[in-house]
């Protein structure tokens, strides 16, 4: 069977859609989980803080590939048949939440302590302090590094090809085997990721410059 260049590009674009979808799911779900994790990480309870810290350490200190395998084979232990897509989405969500929580913790901690004291003196509860005083200010600082981290999420999706999720890298691998043109195909695959990631990198840099402009 012969592949024209258009056949190759068409198939890669189909794979790229799955890369994009997985990135979005992981980023949105990871963001929500990351926010909960952040609340635990900076809570009053020592137990919650410790648990959140261990979780973050675990996901930042082990390869994403192993996390994927653990989810993939771990869920199977319960007798649940898990698809590559589900395993990929769950593992990447967990991975993303750990990194986002740690990034956001840095942003919350960069808010001057006086802001906590001032809002505390207004008899606000801890959650109210976060909701009305701390998080709105931390959010401003958090935008640039959060957008920057989204690049890592998009690149992370490539690892899911190993458990058989047919995204861009996996599609490229199958095409390379069928056409015997790995140089061309992996080159195009790289271009595909670059097209997704470079605008994100540029936006992160632009946002950082905007927000950290010297007053």
């Amino acid at each position, binding site marked *: 069977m012969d592949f024209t260049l258009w056949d190759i590009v068409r198939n890669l674009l189909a794979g790229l859609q799955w890369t994009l979808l997985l990135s979005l799911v992981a980023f949105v779900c990871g963001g929500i989980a990351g926010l909960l994790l952040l609340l635990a990480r900076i809570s009053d309870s020592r137990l919650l803080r410790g648990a959140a810290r261990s979780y973050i*350490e*675990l996901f*930042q*200190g*082990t*390869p*994403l*590939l*192993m*996390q994927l*395998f*653990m989810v993939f*084979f*771990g869920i*199977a*232990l*319960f*007798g649940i048949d898990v698809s590559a897509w589900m395993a990929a989405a769950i593992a990447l969500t967990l991975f993303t939440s750990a990194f986002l929580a740690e990034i956001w913790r840095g942003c919350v901690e960069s808010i001057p302590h006086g802001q906590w004291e001032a809002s505390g003196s207004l008899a606000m509860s801890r959650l109210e302090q976060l909701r009305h005083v701390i998080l709105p200010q931390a959010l401003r600082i958090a935008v640039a590094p959060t957008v920057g981290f989204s*690049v890592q999420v998009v*690149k*992370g*999706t*490539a*690892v899911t*090809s*190993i458990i058989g999720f047919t995204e861009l*890298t996996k599609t*490229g*691998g199958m095409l*390379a085997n069928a056409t015997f*043109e*790995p*140089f061309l*195909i*992996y*080159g195009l*695959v*790289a271009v595909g*990721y*670059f097209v997704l*990631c*470079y605008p994100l*990198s540029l936006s992160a840099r632009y946002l950082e410059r905007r927000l950290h402009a010297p007053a």
Partner: protein
Amino acid sequence: MAYQFDFSPVLAQGGLLLEGAVFTLELTLIGTLFGVAIGVLGALVRAWRLRPFDALFGLYVELIRNTPFIVQLFFIFFGLPALGVRLTEWQAAVLAMVINLGAYSTEIIRAGIQAIPRGQLEAAAALAMSRFEAFRHVVLQPALSSQIVIVMLGSAVCSQIATEELSFAANFIQSRNFRAFETYLLTTALYLVMAILVRQLLAWFGRRALMGRR
């Protein structure tokens, strides 16, 4: 859960896992030495705006930082033979790690150079510190240590081109004893220990290099 955990078939192959772990550490060591060397060179070229090399390094940094490591690895291992460049599994793995870390460390060290106010360099000179000593502070920074750990953990995907590192050993063992979960659980734990150790080692090395002999 009716599943019975059984770690003994994995532990029986513990030697293979340790060999894999040692090979991962070796790959990381070589990758770090050459990667950071590229980073120092790239950062200086970029900071001094040496044309046309600064633009080339800029392109290199953007290309590498905006594509996944596994695609870089596949391109080197499967793609380059088309140009007549044939590498063994471990050579391809090392090359990919060097190129990857080289790009990140170029950016990290360059940012470090830019962040030093001029007065600090003058202060360093006033304290009779050589330029080299002042530069060491720029290179040996926490951001670089984190990136080295990230590259080490990322090297797990090298098992896909049959580089016989830690995750390759894990794949090998679980394909024989069918204890996938137990095998990967132990392997994950091993990676975690390695990440913590390497981080501590780099922090110790950084302190020692910066504060003098302790």
